[in-house]
């Protein structure tokens, strides 16, 4: 195969993988502290993207035209709004069901996702239609044979990687991260060590949801479009990535995200006649992996306690 073409596929795969990894990290954070799956995560991402879009439109309306200001504002507003929403979800929907069967938490977050999706569809102005997301980044492009390097794509990739590194540092190098890890490891012991459990859970939800909003805006910038249904598939893919990597393990989530994107891209490369089947292929592999390693590739260390 042509080297330029190959580079293009790798680039496509990297972009997808970075977005999946960002979503997967959120899932894995929630699972770490609370042992729950927050299935509304993909839809929080979608709402975040719409929040960014609305911020941009509002600024344009007010006459602020500088794309860098607009971009910064969109990121700031969307991530903080979603962080707040994440904390609220944690407080009012997830913590009250702490003692209930896991099915209930799963369902409540699935339904919350539906509520978010439908709210945008019904109440955002013409929300049922795909919305154009503005190109706020420089669009210069350099061509090397069949490979096109776009400045905006490089910036998106860099931003995504920075966010992942940031989360890594936050978890591993700060006191807050230590507390999160402590809660994840053993709730009761963490409590006896004077860690405020509720606070840590809410902060974790805020971080994860803020990250989702960040990914949502990256997604919008990459595809130049956002729509009310985009969160569902992204959420499921992100969750699958987290699972494949082993829930509760941040590196697992990142590896899972890139692995999933690689699977999709490989699906296209290996079966050029059936590129449409790439998602079928990817989900099929997920089901197989689940059959092979029921708790993910890097599995949870503790076996079931009776």
């Amino acid at each position, binding site marked *: 195969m042509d080297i330029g073409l190959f580079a293009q596929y790798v680039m496509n795969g990297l972009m997808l993988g970075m977005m999946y990894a960002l979503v997967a990290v959120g899932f894995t954070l929630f699972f770490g502290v609370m042992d729950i799956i927050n299935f509304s995560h993909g839809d929080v991402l979608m709402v975040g993207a719409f929040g960014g879009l609305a911020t941009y439109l509002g600024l344009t309306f007010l006459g602020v035209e500088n794309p860098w200001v607009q971009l910064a504002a969109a990121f700031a507003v969307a991530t903080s709004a979603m962080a707040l929403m994440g904390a609220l979800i944690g407080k009012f929907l997830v913590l009250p069901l702490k003692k209930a069967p896991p099915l209930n938490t799963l369902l409540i977050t699935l*339904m919350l996702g539906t509520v978010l999706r439908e709210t945008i569809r019904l109440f955002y102005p013409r929300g049922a239609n795909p919305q154009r997301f503005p190109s706020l980044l420089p669009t210069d492009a350099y061509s090397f044979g069949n490979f096109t390097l776009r400045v905006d794509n490089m910036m998106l990739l860099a931003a995504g990687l920075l966010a992942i590194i940031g989360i890594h540092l936050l978890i591993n190098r700060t006191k807050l991260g230590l507390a999160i890890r402590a809660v994840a490891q053993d709730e009761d012991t963490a409590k006896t060590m004077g860690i405020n459990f509720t606070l840590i859970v809410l902060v974790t939800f805020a971080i994860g949801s803020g990250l989702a909003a960040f990914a949502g805006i990256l997604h919008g910038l990459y595809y130049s479009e956002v729509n009310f249904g985009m969160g569902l598939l992204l959420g*499921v893919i992100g*969750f699958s990535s987290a699972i494949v990597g082993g829930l509760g393990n941040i590196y697992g989530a990142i590896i899972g995200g890139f692995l999933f994107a690689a699977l999709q891209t490989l699906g296209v490369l290996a079966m050029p006649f059936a590129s449409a089947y790439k998602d079928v292929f990817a989900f099929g592999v997920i*089901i*197989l992996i689940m*059959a092979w390693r029921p708790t993910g590739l890097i599995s949870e260390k503790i076996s079931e306690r009776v």
Partner: protein
Amino acid sequence: MSARAWLVPLLPGIVAAAGVTVYVILLLVVESQVGIAALLVAGVIAVLVAARFGAAARVGAVFAERDDILNLLVILAVLTVTGFFYEDHFVLLMVATVIIYVIACLGLNLQFGYSGVLNFAGAAFFGIGCYTAAVLTKNTGVPHLVVLVAGGVMAALIGSFLLLPVLRTHSHYSAVVTIAFGLLFKIFLEVNDTLGGPQGLRVDGMNVLGWEFNDNIEIGENFEASFYVNYIVVGLIVLGFAFAFVRRVERSWIGLNLDAMRLDETAAASFGLNITRWKITAFTLGNFLTGLAGALFAMMLGFIAPTNFTFGDSLILVSIVLLGGIGNPWGLVVATVMLIIVPEKLQAIQEYRFLLFAAMVILILLFRPEGLLPRPLRTYIPGWKPK
């Protein structure tokens, strides 16, 4: 025993059934939006009042004692509604849809309610039944009653591909297996050309021994009943069997095993229950029922497409099971009527129905996690009370 002595204890139940029938007919007749809203409010108040003054408990007691009477009354009620609207296509379509959805949810109930096997791909198994019916009716001369069964068998067979991952995984992990399968199924249908792609497929109407289900029933010169009556009759027969079957399973030792497994898998296994066997049984039987309902639905509707079987549709099926009271087949009936008929009649909420259902399920999970009609405690002998 004189007829009087036989009838009197049943009176509260009969009156309640008649009242509900009249109410449903009213709900279906009234077209003005204000009227429907008033009826709904009146219905809620009536139920609350009945509960407050103990009438609901009396009715419940009668039905708990005489399950057979309840079944008979419900069948009578459906036939009354059908007779009342015998030429109104649209109302009968709704009635038939409710019946078919109840069959599908009975399948899910076996999985969620009794054995605790999660299945978030209900719409996909329903869809397998639909597509089986579409392919068989178009391309083969298989008798249509066999097609119904084939729809169920196909759903069970394809479901068995998921058995290994479903058996090996627990809670969240097994949820993701079925969710992934549901999405995979829809995407597969969309990209697969031989099954119609996003365009969908036409399905022939049912034909049993030369009796065309899609023709109106004409008797004499002046009487013409909607063709949906055919589907209601077949649907009721299937539902009758399915319902009786599910109730038998629930009451039998199989149901006991399933309950034990759901409540504590590890403990059940250590008491010698074969977890694998019962999970397979519940998952396969449930998918069979769901697929069967799908096949009937496809033949009635005459047209199916991948967008019938989205993840959202799977969630609606789960909502019905949960809203009705997980594990209680009667709750399913009530919940299905609410989730299918109310949005159709109350046009104002039609567009908001997904939103409202989802919000409703959230509230139920927070404040009444056992659903509208919680599953009653197991009684080993009908009518037995502690002395």
